[in-house]
């Protein structure tokens, strides 16, 4: 596709302080209708000769809406008259300040197929508008009036924000304000550029722009799902990850073949900026067909630029494939020659190296195939290599800085402290190592702030997280026969590893809670809750056990999630406190009586005696030394246990044995005796 920046007028109703157009005050300010008609004749001839080609015409200016709706109707009429066959291959877009938008434009813009507007917005006073603060206030009021009308008529819009010196000290504030202002968060940050005479109060350097972007990127990256439309970040990240191969005209190295600008008197230019800067004039559509304009000798020089830069200024640069030396006009403005790299290339290289790679763990590696060289233009562009091999995302090596891998815990909370402990050991050995955790219910509550976890969320659809389970396909064959060791091996920790547990927060007591609990001299916490009904013991057994303990003078409290029933007669803290408070408060108890669940792990974390009741799972695999384990005898068709490694049953389904399932075979007296022994140990 070719893009024509169509400046049918140089007239603008604004006087922005950063306007860099030097080609002003021309005698022809608005394109006469005869040139407009000629323009569509030229387009038709060009497209007729190239049946595969398409053209996008971007109404630009000046301010295109100063033309009035009638001008657009006439343009459409010319297009319909001269492009009967080729018309479907022509599309329109518009870049406008929108302040003159009114209902009168709706019909003709819709007929042109325009659905989306590129526009600009500036909060800082005195930057846009007719001049001064008053001018910008009135301009902005007109602008927001136009926006509501635009939206009501079904058009969408996005903002290009021009970063000037006035904006440099408030990047985050501007980022939030602009993304709050634009409903789709479609905001693009561009640096202000000038051909010469850079005004000191406005102009910025590439280094300043990189730091401005860097501050915003640090905020954007972890919240990028919240701000889906922010550029240059989204495009750049998509590009580095190979999601998209599209490059801006400034970076493609192919602008000689893709872009063209026409100004009101019919003069053809390399692009919109070259027209503004009065550089690279390539004839006139009044005198020459488009094909001749695209073959102008200056364009030939431009086509040679990538080959020159690759051996010269950009030799060895790993960002060549996504930069190609940057905009030739910037190079021309700075050095007097297009055969140099753009001074703004730092906004790619510096930004990626200083901010993007450290923040994301993505390391950009250039594609090595020569196919990444931008295609030279020819009449038959289809025959040229266009595809650029995708750069790859390199996972971090042991000490590397690559993208942290995603890890996916199994449902339930039983393993969370083990996973946490293993990750802690890994990060202690290698402080730069990070993981991303698939967000499972409850994990975030405990693991947020973990030093080894860079992110808790959902992985992109293209990434399969490393599953933190104990068996099935892909299970390591050399693992130790302990749950902890299996997980440690899965996460890359050398085994056998010390079976330490960890939480990424300090234990704190809520004074109100501590007063609230009816403490006795010795206190026992019972934890009947399990994620699976197969590991649950009948509440009546819990009640009888509790009664016996209470009669023996113990304070007995129940603490678990809301899924387990209330054990009558005991003091219940179920559902009243946050999981972090749960973990903290358990350290004040003398004994934990629990099934195989998170509370067994918490008891281990605090080194508190515990009696653990085991049924479908095996204490030799999951349990800890020092705990008192009661393993029920299984009489069901799954003598090896129905949960866990290679068992193949659905944990969420109740045991078909009903009330006689293994967990209900415990004698109250046995548990009571075990509790006494554990307390006296």
């Amino acid at each position, binding site marked *: 596709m070719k893009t024509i920046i169509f400046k049918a007028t140089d007239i603008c109703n604004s006087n922005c302080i950063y306007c860099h157009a030097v080609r002003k005050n021309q005698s022809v300010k608005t394109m006469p209708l005869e040139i407009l008609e000629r323009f569509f004749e030229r387009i038709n001839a060009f497209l007729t000769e190239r049946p595969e080609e398409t053209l996008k015409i971007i109404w630009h200016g000046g301010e295109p809406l100063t033309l009035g709706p009638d001008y657009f109707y006439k343009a459409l009429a010319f297009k319909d008259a001269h492009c009967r066959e080729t018309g479907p291959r022509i599309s329109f877009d518009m870049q406008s300040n929108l302040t003159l938008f009114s209902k009168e434009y709706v019909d003709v813009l819709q007929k042109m197929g325009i659905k989306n507007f590129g526009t600009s917005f500036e*909060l800082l006073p005195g930057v846009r508008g007719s001049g001064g603060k008053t001018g910008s206030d009135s301009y902005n*009021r007109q602008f927001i009036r136009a926006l509501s009308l635009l939206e009501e008529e079904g058009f969408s819009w996005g903002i290009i924000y021009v970063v000037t010196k006035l904006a440099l000290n408030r990047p985050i*504030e501007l980022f*939030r304000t602009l993304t709050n202002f634009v*409903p789709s968060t479609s905001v693009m940050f561009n640096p202000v550029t000038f051909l010469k005479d850079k005004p000191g109060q406005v102009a910025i350097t590439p280094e300043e722009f990189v730091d401005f972007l860097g501050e915003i990127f640090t905020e954007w990256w972890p919240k990028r799902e*919240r701000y889906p439309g922010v550029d240059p970040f989204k495009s750049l990240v998509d590009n580095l990850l190979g999601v998209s191969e599209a490059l801006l005209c400034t970076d493609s190295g192919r602008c000689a073949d893709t872009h063209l600008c026409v100004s009101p008197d019919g003069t053809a230019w390399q692009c919109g900026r070259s027209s503004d800067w009065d550089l690279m004039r390539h004839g006139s559509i009044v005198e020459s067909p488009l094909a001749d304009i695209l073959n102008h000798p200056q364009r030939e020089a431009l086509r040679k630029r990538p080959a020159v830069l690759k051996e010269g200024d950009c030799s060895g640069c790993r960002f060549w494939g996504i930069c190609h030396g940057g905009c030739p006009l910037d190079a021309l403005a700075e050095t007097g020659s297009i055969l140099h790299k753009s001074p703004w290339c730092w906004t790619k290289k510096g930004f990626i190296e200083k901010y993007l790679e450290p923040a994301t763990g993505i390391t950009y590696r250039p594609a090595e195939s020569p196919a990444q060289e931008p295609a030279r233009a020819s009449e038959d562009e289809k025959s040229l290599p266009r595809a650029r091999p995708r750069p790859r995302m390199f996972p971090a090596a042991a000490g590397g800085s690559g993208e942290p891998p995603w890890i996916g815990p199994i449902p339930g909370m039983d393993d969370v402290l083990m996973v946490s402990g293993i990750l802690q050991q890994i990060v202690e050995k290698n402080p730069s190592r990070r993981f991303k955790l698939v*967000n499972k219910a409850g994990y975030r509550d405990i693991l947020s702030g973990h030093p080894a976890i860079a992110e808790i969320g959902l992985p992109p659809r293209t990434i399969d997280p490393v599953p933190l389970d104990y068996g099935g396909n892909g299970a390591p064959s050399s693992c130790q026969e302990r749950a902890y060791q299996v997980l440690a091996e899965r996460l890359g920790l050398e085994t056998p590893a010390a079976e330490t547990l960890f939480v990424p927060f300090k234990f704190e007591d809520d004074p109100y809670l501590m007063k609230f609990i009816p403490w006795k001299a010795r206190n026992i916490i019972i934890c009947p809750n399990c994620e699976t009904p197969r590991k649950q013991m009948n509440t009546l057994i819990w009640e009888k056990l509790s009664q016996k303990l209470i009669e023996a003078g113990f304070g007995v409290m129940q603490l678990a999630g*809301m899924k387990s029933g209330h054990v009558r007669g005991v003091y219940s803290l179920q559902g009243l406190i946050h999981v972090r408070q749960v973990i903290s408060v358990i350290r004040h108890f003398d004994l934990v009586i629990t099934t195989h669940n998170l509370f067994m792990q918490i008891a281990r974390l605090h080194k508190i005696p515990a009696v653990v009741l085991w049924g479908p799972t095996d204490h030799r695999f999951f349990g800890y030394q020092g705990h008192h384990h009661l393993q029920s005898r299984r009489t069901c068709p799954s003598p090896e246990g129905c949960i866990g490694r290679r068992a193949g049953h659905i944990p969420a389904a109740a045991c078909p044995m009903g009330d006689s399932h293994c967990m209900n075979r415990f004698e109250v007296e046995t548990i009571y005796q075990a509790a006494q022994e554990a307390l006296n140990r």
Partner: protein
Amino acid sequence: MKTPTLVCPYSRPLLDRIAGYAMVVRVDRFADISRAADEVRSAGKTLQCVLVESEMPLNAIDFQKDWQGIPIALSVPAMGAFREIADRVRQLADLKVHVYLPAAKRENLTASRMLASLDVTCCLVFDSAPPHWEALADLMTYALFGSNPHAPVEPFNYLAEHYRAGADIDWGAVYFDDSAEFLHLDADGRVALSWRELCCGAFIAEDISLLGDPSENALYRNSLNTRRALFLNGHPCIACEGWKVCLGRFGADGKHRPGCAASAADLLGELEHYRNQQLERA
């Protein structure tokens, strides 16, 4: 603009004049609830809700059997003593009553949780006084992530249902306060864009019959820009991280900062978390 729902006082002559609109009828007395609902429905009109504001706490209200099947928005200052309502909560849950409670009182946050846990839909009303932000955050977590069954707690439920990454969510519809969906009428049929404007006498039409297409109305058009206009005068909310889910409703005057800002940012995070959880389950 789609056809708005009209929020109007219970007045027979006024109801007779209105056609072609869904209605929210505001009554002053409990005794009028079923009467108003009957009259609207028997005239073949769509009743969206009966709205009643009470100065009595919930425990002092006698729920009537003939409210059965009538959607009721009941605004009360507080729940009152739970022991006095405990044996009637089942009845309240069976009726289609949504209980509106001022969020500024901390006990109302607790009451909302209790009522929701007993299957009564609740709705927090944010006004000029700030709520206890931490307690509000707890309630938000309960409303979105509480694993035991409970009734919706608004506005969190509405927000969770309407959240889309990057998009603004206006939850004014929860309070019938969104001029894109609701217009407010006084007893004379004069039309305002909100309850507040109705009370101030700021009408966009002197009669419902003169309303025409609201989107053509200059006052309506200006109202669309009210929120955006905040961006032009440096309002403290415009750079707030939680703006898109608050839109100034937690503290439109900017006085509640930084409590409201942190709370709105929390809410945004919770909504994202909730959305991810839904996607994960899907």
